[in-house]
């Protein structure tokens, strides 16, 4: 959980959450009721109305709005008075837990090393104790002092706080501003107070909101057992307990306090959850319900007959994500063509939409995505198809080598089980499946055969895992393999091996390959053709050699310059500026804020895609060699 977030934004997100708003309103109402209720009621909470003894039913007559309890005390006044005690205990005990927990956790996290290990070991030992029983014991043995109840309950919940705060502090103390303060010679207590505690505010607030309902629960639990506050004082737990005894004669004396207690706890929990989501957007669920992916009618005309050798034709591919803040456009109209056995590299910085394009080809876009345009594979339109159609495509026709070899294998199953499963799913029987798994393992150059099949993914290196993933993708012999940054997570030496293996298998099996990478050199080295993407659009496409030797788009030239500098031994110089925000791409040519050649029309008009006539295409108002100016 990342509790360190800028203050801007979370308040807005919280205010936008309808459940949180409702919960906050109800809580305010409860607090108000509890605060002014006793003075509204004509009856004090501890006065006995002998006319109402044995329980008067709720009603306006007699002034007992919620009725009376068994001995004739006004229930409304008692519920309000009980709420005062319950909420007071909740706030006070939470504060105790907070103060102790934050101090302990920050000290352990700041000290680090052995002191930290020792302090956390002590927390572990305490954690394993059945604490509820100790709290009960304490109150049984030492009587019903409100202060003791605060201390006992606070003493249970500080452990949680200490853990959370310690984790955050550990990560904070490695931050630059803390290091800087230390170098400047600030004393530790001051660093903790000035730099660490303010940054812990987020987690602490969330922790407090979620601790409070638990604390109120414990207090009511004690009161229920008859161990809470002493008569005639009362709390919600005590009222529920009394109500439970009287429920046959006066059911309202159970229902009202129980309902108010439940409502308060529910609202606190809802508010705490919302607060956590607001402070930690990564934790939050996707906004709003997820619509099933639907495709718009194909843009352009796909009516023209495709030549037999054409494997994949993508036209006007779009991938949109509807968000509360507006439409997020990950891919904004991409055209692709790939012949059988052909190879295409898709190059671009992270966030340019290249992976989204790849996933759209397999129907594997995340929930909430809305693809549009047309994807025709072997003459068949794929977008808009159902689960059954995609199952026929995935593996059999299009295979995927994913980006992350470390997380793309199931950690709980052996390599063999995973390979066999894919083989069986594509029609092979038990023994044949195992034989095929072994053959594929051999094909991707993993030595050790059958023994390897019994290993779990965590027993293999990153390069080995990527080989296994290649084997998995190639086992059903797809016509097209999509490799989504297959080497990004690997060491440089392993990268070369994996790329060589991919190229070799591609030629041997005669399949087409789409290689997605951020490295122009890798794409140009491994593929016949290269497509460069920027901000969800294609900006340049052409034969790999031509693009490499004479880039026309300033962005392609930037990527190339960056590569060449690295080869010359200098530090690679990135293209100045940041990749654009997919939610708010710049108008006109999306590259213009970073382009040295930008002119007025680059800001105003999106450059149209132009065919260079020499097998190259480009979308730029002012290309480098001026061929299409």
């Amino acid at each position, binding site marked *: 959980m990342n509790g360190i977030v800028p203050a801007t934004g979370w308040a807005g997100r919280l205010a936008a959450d309808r459940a949180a708003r409702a919960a906050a309103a109800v809580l305010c109402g409860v607090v108000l009721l509890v605060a002014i209720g006793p003075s509204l009621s004509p009856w004090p909470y501890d006065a006995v109305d002998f006319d109402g003894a044995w329980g008067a039913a709720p009603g306006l007559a007699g002034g007992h709005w919620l009725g009376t309890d068994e001995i004739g005390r006004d229930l409304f006044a008692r519920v309000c008075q009980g709420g005062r005690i319950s909420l007071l205990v909740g706030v006070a005990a939470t504060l105790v837990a907070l103060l102790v927990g934050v101090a302990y956790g920050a000290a352990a996290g700041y000290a680090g090393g052995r002191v930290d290990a020792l302090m956390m070991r002590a927390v572990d*030992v*305490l954690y*394993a*104790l*059945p604490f*509820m*029983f*100790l709290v009960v*014991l304490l109150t*049984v*043995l030492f009587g019903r002092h409100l202060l003791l109840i605060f201390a006992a309950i606070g003493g249970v919940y500080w452990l*949680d706080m200490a*853990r959370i705060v310690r984790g955050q502090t550990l990560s904070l103390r490695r931050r630059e501003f803390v290091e800087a303060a230390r170098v400047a010679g600030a004393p530790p207590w001051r660093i903790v107070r000035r730099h660490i505690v303010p940054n812990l505010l987020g987690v602490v607030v969330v922790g407090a909101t979620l601790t409070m*309902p638990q604390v109120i629960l414990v207090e*009511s639990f004690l009161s229920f*057992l008859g161990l809470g506050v002493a008569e005639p004082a009362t709390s919600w737990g005590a009222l*529920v307990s009394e109500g439970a005894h009287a429920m*046959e004669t006066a*059911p309202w004396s159970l229902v009202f306090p*129980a309902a108010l*207690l*439940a409502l308060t706890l*529910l609202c606190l*929990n*809802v508010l705490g*959850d919302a607060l956590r989501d607001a402070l930690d957007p990564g934790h939050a*669920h*996707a906004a*709003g*319900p*997820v619509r099933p992916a639907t495709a718009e009618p194909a843009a352009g005309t796909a009516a023209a007959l495709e030549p037999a050798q054409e494997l994949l034709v993508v036209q006007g591919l779009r991938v949109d994500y509807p968000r509360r803040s507006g439409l997020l456009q990950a891919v904004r109209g991409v055209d692709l063509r790939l012949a059988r056995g052909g190879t295409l590299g898709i190059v671009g910085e992270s966030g340019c939409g290249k992976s989204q394009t790849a996933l759209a080809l*397999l129907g*594997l876009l*995340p929930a909430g995505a809305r693809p549009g345009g047309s994807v025709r594979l072997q003459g068949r339109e794929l977008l808009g198809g159902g689960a059954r159609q995609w199952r026929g495509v*995935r*593996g059999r026709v299009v*295979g*995927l080598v*994913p980006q*992350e070899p470390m*997380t*793309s294998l*199931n*950690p*709980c*199953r*052996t390599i*063999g*089980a995973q390979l066999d*499963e*894919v083989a069986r*799913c*594509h029609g092979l029987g038990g023994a044949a499946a195992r034989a095929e798994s072994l053959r594929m393992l051999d094909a991707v150059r993993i030595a050790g055969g059958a023994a390897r099949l*019994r290993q*779990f993914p965590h*027993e293999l290196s990153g390069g080995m895992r990527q080989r296994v*993933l290649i084997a*998995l*993708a190639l086992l*059903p012999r797809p016509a097209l393999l999509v490799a989504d940054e297959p080497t990004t997570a690997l060491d440089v030496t392993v990268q070369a091996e994996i790329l060589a293996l991919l190229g070799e298998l591609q030629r041997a099996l005669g399949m087409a390959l789409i290689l997605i990478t951020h490295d122009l050199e890798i794409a140009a080295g491994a593929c016949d053709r290269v497509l460069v993407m920027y901000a969800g659009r294609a900006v340049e496409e052409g034969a790999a050699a031509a693009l490499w030797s004479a880039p026309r788009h300033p962005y392609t030239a930037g990527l190339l310059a960056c590569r060449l500098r690295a080869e010359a031994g200098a530090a690679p110089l990135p293209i100045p500026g940041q990749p654009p925000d997919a939610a708010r791409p710049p108008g006109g040519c999306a590259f213009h804020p970073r382009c040295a050649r930008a002119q007025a029309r680059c800001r105003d008009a999106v450059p149209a895609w132009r065919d260079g006539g020499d097998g190259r295409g480009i979308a730029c108002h002012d290309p480098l060699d001026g061929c299409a100016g």
Partner: protein
Amino acid sequence: MRRSENRRHRIRDKRCRTGAGAASFRPVPASVLSLALRRLLGAVPTLLVLVTLVFFLMRAAPGGPFDRERTLPPQIEARLAAEYRLDQPLWRQYLHYLGRLAHGDLGPSFQYEGFTVGELIGSGAPVSAELGGAALLLALLLGGGLGCAAALARGSAVDRALMLVSMLGISVPNYVTAPLAILLFAVLLNWLPAGGWSAHGMADAVLPVLALALPQIAAIARLTRASLLEVLGAGFIRAARAHGLGEARVLLGHAFKPAALPVLSYLGPAAAGILTGSVVVEQTFGIPGIGRYFVQGALNRDYTLVLGVVLFYGTLIVLFNLLVDLLYGWLDPRALPA
């Protein structure tokens, strides 16, 4: 949930021994036994702290086991004190208790004359175990099922309704649901008995088990939903789909097992919650388990009985956590020690 993080710290990064068997069957390696042994030894300090704390707390409290409205003659009081060693210095009593404990003897009860604490716990434990076991099983099955349903129907009305109800389930404690359930189903509708344990057969168990399980059903449903959603977003699920596996195979073969791991880790806290809740539920429904001994024993200053019950609960929680660790090692090959 809070324990799981800690447990993973301890057992993370340990390599699994490559078993020689097939994938579906791996022999229990000796390392599992040594893990169990180590964890049991590691629990000794915790239990020792617990016994010491409770022992001295009880003694620090005002009053004693033989305080009655009517004061006893001094000779009789002295004889009783000598019989129960209350005339000895506190530290000798403490060491004596520990010595007996080492032999598995929990001592005689102060309150229930002629009974040892062991006998009392032995008589109540089967009932409490039936109640708690049934509640835990129900919580797992129903909570897990509902959580999966909510995750698979993510964002739908079903999901939102289930999550709201489960939030309510977490928020409303046993001691509110138990009497409300009696009021509704026993008093008003007269469908089920309001209390007792074996008089009406299975019907007796319905309300207490439900009341005890409800908060855990809710907690497990929320946890399962979050866990399954996280796994469904994982790279290997996308990869499995990309290899052409059907949705049923992806769920059964790849998603459920990893998604069950956090739920498994929650079993320790869930068991602790059910133990605590059983004190209330046993009292509300008049069930003859050991929950009632705890509060009654503390009120009567029955030193040995309270110590015995707390120790019993503490040991149960330790054992439960050990069981969870072992199951974890079996389900997640990364967690097995070398």
